[in-house]
């Protein structure tokens, strides 16, 4: 009897999970559907772009610069053991463009803009603003979620590009100016070894991360529970889940695109 009950409960749990997953995927499809379907509302997406940019630019520049500086330092230290300081530029650039740029930028945007987004949508849910949209015959996914996903799609590659660029400069400042690696081979190494494929790899990653982060953060905020802790829980879950999914997707994409 007890056995039957537990199996029943397990079954209910599995059905619940599948249903949640279904809703989760359906949420993205709906949002993307409204990105593609007219009428287009570029005004809304631009506002989101601005807010993601304003939220995250400074952080991206700061973290990007430090990441590049650390790479310059570590890279120089390692390469000088093999007397190949000339390769420093390529090492810094490839590491940033293929791997660290997209991943760290995505993590930072998730922590800063993604959490703000989850909190904003969460409080809109809690105070019935989302219901108000529906009653006004305005599709809330179209109005709130689609512009955010579109903005993520555009802003992630741009911010990643910023991260990579400032990182390469940071690596130069430390590796060349401070440690004394040869400056001309730093730049030449980059232009010779950084291929279009490397750049595309980074670009694909940042686009995928952009969708994933906006998707999770919007979903969590949109479905925040209407209780005192609902919004804070949605925000935390959004950031944690985004971070995990960024790293999972990174591994997957790296193995596919390598």
């Amino acid at each position: 009897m007890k056995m039957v009950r537990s199996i029943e409960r397990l079954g209910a749990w599995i059905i619940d999970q599948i249903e949640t997953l279904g809703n989760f995927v359906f949420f993205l499809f709906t949002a993307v559907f409204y990105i593609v379907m007219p009428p287009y509302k570029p005004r809304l997406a631009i506002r989101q772009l601005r807010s993601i940019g304003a939220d995250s630019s400074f952080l991206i520049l700061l973290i990007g610069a430090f990441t590049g500086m650390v790479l310059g330092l570590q890279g120089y230290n390692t390469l000088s053991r093999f007397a190949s300081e000339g390769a420093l530029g390529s090492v810094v650039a490839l590491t940033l463009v293929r791997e660290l740029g997209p991943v760290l930028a995505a993590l930072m945007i998730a922590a800063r803009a993604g959490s703000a987004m989850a909190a904003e949508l969460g409080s809109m849910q809690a105070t019935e603003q989302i219901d108000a949209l529906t009653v006004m015959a305005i599709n809330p996914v179209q109005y709130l979620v689609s512009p955010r996903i579109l903005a993520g799609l555009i802003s992630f590659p741009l911010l990643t590009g910023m991260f990579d660029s400032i990182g390469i400069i940071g690596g130069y400042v430390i590796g060349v100016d401070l440690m004394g690696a040869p400056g001309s081979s730093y730049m030449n190494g980059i232009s010779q070894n950084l291929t279009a494929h490397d750049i595309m790899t980074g670009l694909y990653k940042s686009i995928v991360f952009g969708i994933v982060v906006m998707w999770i953060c919007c979903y969590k905020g949109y479905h925040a529970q209407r209780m005192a802790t609902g919004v804070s829980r949605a925000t935390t879950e959004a950031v944690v889940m985004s971070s995990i999914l960024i790293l999972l997707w990174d591994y997957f994409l790296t193995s596919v695109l390598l």
Partner: protein
Amino acid sequence: MTNATSAGKASPISISIRDLRRSFGHQEVLRGVNIDFPRGKVTTIVGPSGCGKTVFLKHLNTLLRPDSGKIVIDGIDVTSVSRGGLDAVREKFGMLFQAGALFDSMPVFDNVAFPLVEKTRLSRDEIASRVRETLAAVGLEGMDDKYPSELSGGMQKRAALARALIRRPSILMLDEPTTGLDPSRTRAIHALVRQTQQRFGLTAALVSHDVPAVFEISDHVAFMHEGKIRVYGTVAEVTSAHDELFERFLAGKASGEESPAAAG
């Protein structure tokens, strides 16, 4: 559509609910609600907090779909209307949410203008004059640029009411429009609701906690208990009805047994 509407207009009943049932998981919230909302009248639903008033109202305005039962609005059974068709039905509604639901990213003017900007092709000037007129009607002038967070509770309700009225709905739904207001503001909002309802000839579905104050502005009153309508009638009828639970509810409210903070 036009036929259904004109047929509906003739009928003295604007909204008719039959055996409405809705559960969340194992919790049966609505257990067979039957009630009619006469056209051009204020019908008020009262009941203890958590009895399902908000859930009921969200079925009326088609935010939630019932497990079973019928909701007929102006001759259209909205439970069997497609998603696209629902939007047409929703154009009839103005809804004042319990939490106000003003968009906190927008100032008052934009909040009230929002439905017109998004759903109509009116010119900027026409929108501005409609908004000013509606804000004046709810007694909220000179607040155009204030954000909702900068308004008092009473002013937020007025702004939300203005937004609910801006598209000239024929049905106004209000979810506890006076929760969290002091008695004098409560009276003022009640008076405003009655005045606008009469001015625009609206059918009003009002959910309230404020007994007996809300009776003054009601034509009909329904007492909801455990997901059913237990007492229904004109104000005179229900106040002389002998229903033990309803009397206990009224007495409890009068003696302040249930604190306003606990109000759902």
